[in-house]
């Protein structure tokens, strides 16, 4: 018997004596919906609130984003070629539209598309088929995820329903962090230290 057969055989033997087996319980979608943290007049407003609670940054204005990047001295980076038209008018900020791995530590920001966002948790949903380059969303200190307001869903359950068959889906909730050293929270570990969502109409 090979390993696979051994394991399946051992499982069947282990379960055979059970007189009855536990049924799969039914549960409503509402069971896991988080209580609202406040009153919001739109999913966008709720998302913005939760995103900042998770130390992320919300922008819905390209001008404001430009100002922020300049303030952070983040003036050279990468941008998804499909999004370049929104930002190519920027002055004092330049970007590649083809990711050059040799410049991985030179790109101070990466602008890529998000597939959706989740209002109840302030989460960005990234997909392989929508992210032009994985490293662009991961390596730079600043990651800007761009999405349309209509792609903000209310709950985690709804986001899961939108998975489709993409092989790599990421829920990103705020900047990377750790508390491994003495329980002290540090932001910006291996992933971005600043996580931005740019919501366009």
């Amino acid at each position, binding site marked *: 018997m090979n390993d696979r057969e051994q*394991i399946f055989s051992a499982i069947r033997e282990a379960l055979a004596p059970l007189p009855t087996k536990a049924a799969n319980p039914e*549960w409503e979608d509402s069971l896991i919906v988080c209580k609202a943290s406040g009153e919001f007049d739109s999913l966008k407003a709720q998302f913005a609130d939760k995103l900042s609670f998770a130390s992320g940054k919300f922008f819905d204005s390209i001008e404001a984003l430009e100002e922020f990047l300049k303030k952070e001295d983040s003036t050279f980076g990468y941008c998804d070629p499909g999004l370049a038209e929104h930002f190519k008018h920027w002055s004092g900020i330049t970007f590649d539209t083809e990711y050059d791995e040799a410049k991985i530590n030179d790109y101070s920001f990466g602008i890529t598309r998000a597939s959706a966002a989740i209002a109840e948790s302030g989460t960005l949903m990234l997909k392989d088929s929508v992210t032009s380059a994985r490293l662009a969303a991961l390596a730079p200190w600043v990651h800007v995820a761009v999405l349309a307001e209509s792609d903000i869903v209310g709950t985690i359950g709804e986001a899961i329903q939108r998975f489709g068959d993409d092989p790599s889906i990421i829920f990103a909730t705020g900047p990377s962090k750790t508390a491994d050293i003495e329980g002290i929270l540090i932001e910006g570990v291996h992933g971005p230290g600043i996580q931005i969502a740019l919501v366009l109409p």
Partner: protein
Amino acid sequence: MKTHQQIDRVARDLDPEVHEANFMGAKLKSERRYASLERDYPDPDKLREIAGLIKQHTLEHLDQYLEQTEASLQKNGVKVHFATDDEAVNAAVLRIMNETDSHSMVKSKSMITEEIHLLDYLEKNGKEVVETDLGEFILQIDGDHPSHIVTPIVHKNRRGIAKSFEREGLGDYNDDPETITRRARKYLRQKYLDADVGLTGANFVSAESGRIVLVTNEGNARFCMAANRVHIAVVGIEKLVPTDRDLGLFLNLIGRSGTGQQLTVYNQFVGGPRAEGQPHGPKEMHVVFVDNRRTEVLASDCREILRCIRCGACLNVCPIYRQSGGHAYRSVYPGPVGAVLSPLLAGNRFPELADLPKASSLCGACNEVCPVNIPIPDLLLRLRDKAKREGAKEAMKGTPNLGMWATLCSQPAMWKTALSMGHSMNYIPTQMIPNPSAKAWQAIRKLPKFQGGEFRKWFKNRNQGSEARSQNPTN
């Protein structure tokens, strides 16, 4: 006479700084867990109950779900392997590395790889392996082991880490946590870019879609799948859940239970190699499903422990863990979950760890915080029974010998004699009582005079009396 178990001795001798760090860390995480659940849900226990039932159902139909998972993964272009024990897993990983011409590996946190000592094996076979989770990286350069399943270096402080970094050539002594983190970021970034293989564990696997789920905060697991050619996931067979929808429930529980976060920063759902047109990421993905005695646990009367999603909540709330720290459990899994799982995963070395289930007051706090509602105190009792029946010597030290009690109970004449003679203990000087437990008992008590036997007399006579009465109806 006091008996100290090994865990008592470790707690007694624990460095006060380590004790403080461990205790305060556990307390904080427990408080955050509670606060986040109460804030976000009207009835958090309902979620725990349902999650527990889903996991139990999955375990009791594990052959079906494992088959379904294998099929889903293969449909996505993933190569699926099975390994019965630690040797098999290590051999499989090495073989995959050799077949893909891979020399170097970056790995993200995985407790199962601690079980099988994967790092040591690969290094002995000439491969370079780098731990990328910050805590695990620090442990690797120190030749140390995790003391908690979620926050592995809770027993270390910044000064020790700074010294280690200096020793490894990562910069002059600097114990500022932010500086330490930045240095690790820079050093490990080059390792990610140079590595051939990225290895991960998996927190969950969806049988429906074949997606493995990674629950992290640092971004290291993402990086293990951004610049490498091959991704290998080593996964215990008990990690399955039926559907993607179920993941919504488990992800809402695991972050809050472990650290009080609604969601950890990154939840990755990895279904296969990179998508068509994606320039970065592995072109090849392997999943190795591992048994390593999990089927033995499945066959035992402690199978509920396999529901565990490794959140660490039971550790954080346990009064024993808070005093002794994780290393005191002498095994990969510490705390209440470890007290059940470690002796069972030890197989025929069960007696060596059979004292762990005794390290509990059965307060039940662990079950109350468990996101999958594992009845840990019940399991601890079953394991204590197992240890007794199998005569596990170390574990049984200090357990009173109940053989005499059993004899007395089963012989009515002996029982009666013992009762009526019992109070004569009052006339024996306490110091002269040979049995230590009896001596301790008698030292602070005075047994009352035996005034009993009335019920037995009455009962015996009652029968005779009723016969007499039935012959004399006028009475």
